[in-house]
């Protein structure tokens, strides 16, 4: 069993910061973008960006050499 690499974990934490911990920064109505309140727009944007982060993690962990081997 191969645990995830540090690089992959770092990519994986990005969506958590953007969609969860930083809520106080983006939970507002203005500016409305594409007709959506800012908080809704922000979350939808990150729904699209989360697969990008995970795809990066996928590339790192399935192709990258030198990932640690676990027990």
């Amino acid at each position, binding site marked *: *069993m191969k645990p995830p690499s540090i690089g992959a974990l770092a990519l994986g934490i990005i*969506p958590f910061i953007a*969609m969860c911990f930083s809520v106080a920064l983006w*939970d507002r109505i203005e500016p*409305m973008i594409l007709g959506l309140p800012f908080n*809704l727009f922000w979350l*939808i944007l990150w729904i699209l960006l989360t697969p990008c982060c995970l795809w990066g993690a*996928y590339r790192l962990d399935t192709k990258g050499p030198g990932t640690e081997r676990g027990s």
Partner: protein
Amino acid sequence: MTPAATALTVIIAIVAIGTAVGFLAGSRQRMDLEQWAVGGRGFGTALVFLLMAGEIYTTFAFLGVSGWAYSRGGPILYVLAYLSLAYAASFFFLPQLWEVGHKHRMQTQPDFFNTRYGNKYLSGFVCVVGILAFIPYLQLQLDGVGIIVSVASFGHIGRVPAMTVATVLVIAFVVANGVRAVAWVSVIKDVLMVVAAVAIGIGIPLAHFGSIGAMFTALAHARPHHLTMPGATANLGHSWYISTVLLTALGFYMWPHTFGATFTAKSADTLRRNAVVMPLYTLTLALMFFAGFAVVLITPHLQNGDLALLTVVGRIFPPWLLGVIGGAGALTAMVPAAVLILTAATLFAKNLYRPLFAPAMTDDGVARLARGMVFFLGATSLALAIYGSSTLVSLLLTGYAVVTQCFPGVILGLYWRRASGRAVFIGMIAGVLLAVSLMSAHLDPLFGLNAGFLALCINLTVAVLGSLLSAPEAARGFQEPRIAARPLSE
């Protein structure tokens, strides 16, 4: 035909087709215990995707999310975050879980706990926690069918008969076919769900406001506080949001059925690729937000927010479309209900009853007991749905507060050799007791935080400290499969 008759005919036709497909799928295969519960470990990417989607996009998505968008406002945004983050988190432990499960031939969540910690009382407790958390979840599904049919029939058919028929159908296809039936029914359901979501989420704002942007502008003007947190609530602010998103994102794969579905994947890589793609599925939920928010202006002052979506659909759309949406909604409730009942029954028979009370029971005996449990669980959850009252979102959050208490045991078990079964056990007991008592004392949220999340923190702290305090030489990690494959008593 009257509008009610048209809508109901379409609903019944869709449910009948869905059920027929369920019965036809896999009916030519002999079902032994493993076939029945994990589909023979042969599912490919596409079918696993559909199986997981069928379990994930529930009544909660259809009626619950729009209902809270209507009645609570801003706090419901947690749903968009938690689903994406659940997949993000899963990327980092599901593939590893699959590998361990494959090596040790695990079928269920308690199998994992028993193999890793070698404590049959701990794995028995995990069963109890899973079944306990399923109760509000099942109740949610049946409530949904009741709401759909009573709104679609314009009040002619009551909740109780509708829920009873749905329960009987669910039991029938679970007993006859096991999990393959459920996978095929969700093919139909998923297609209909997308059609329904687009029709509702785009149609309602367009019909009433001209565009989605105009709808939000009007809402921001009329009810400026509804769209941000805490919305229409007193205490669901930012700290509640963060703690709830974490609790639910980490708990998403702790449900016995989502955990168990992991083992049906073809490979660890299938699960990695699913985790990358699945967040995109969450986008369809945004449409439910549009619908729920639109109803705030169209039909304010509804008693029950969960009725908001369908009430407006019934007013705006022709009856046959209400029927299509209702049919999709009914299948959306019945597919997960089937998975929940099947999983709970298998857990009870295989992981609770046999190891603790009847070690000599044969696999055939376990399969028979599981089928018996399907009837019992169906009847119990039907009774609870008839007599209970709670919003759909609250029901799911209650389930999460309980089920996420399994998370420390799973993650520490996978990645930390020193994690001790006894410490994990005590942590879980503390977490479950705390979550249940805070919620039944109406102390949720407490200090602005989700009560289940507070309980999870205590649980994790106890598990980690307890493991550090226990003797290092007692650390067992995963034993070789030869040892784990023995009968469950050590």
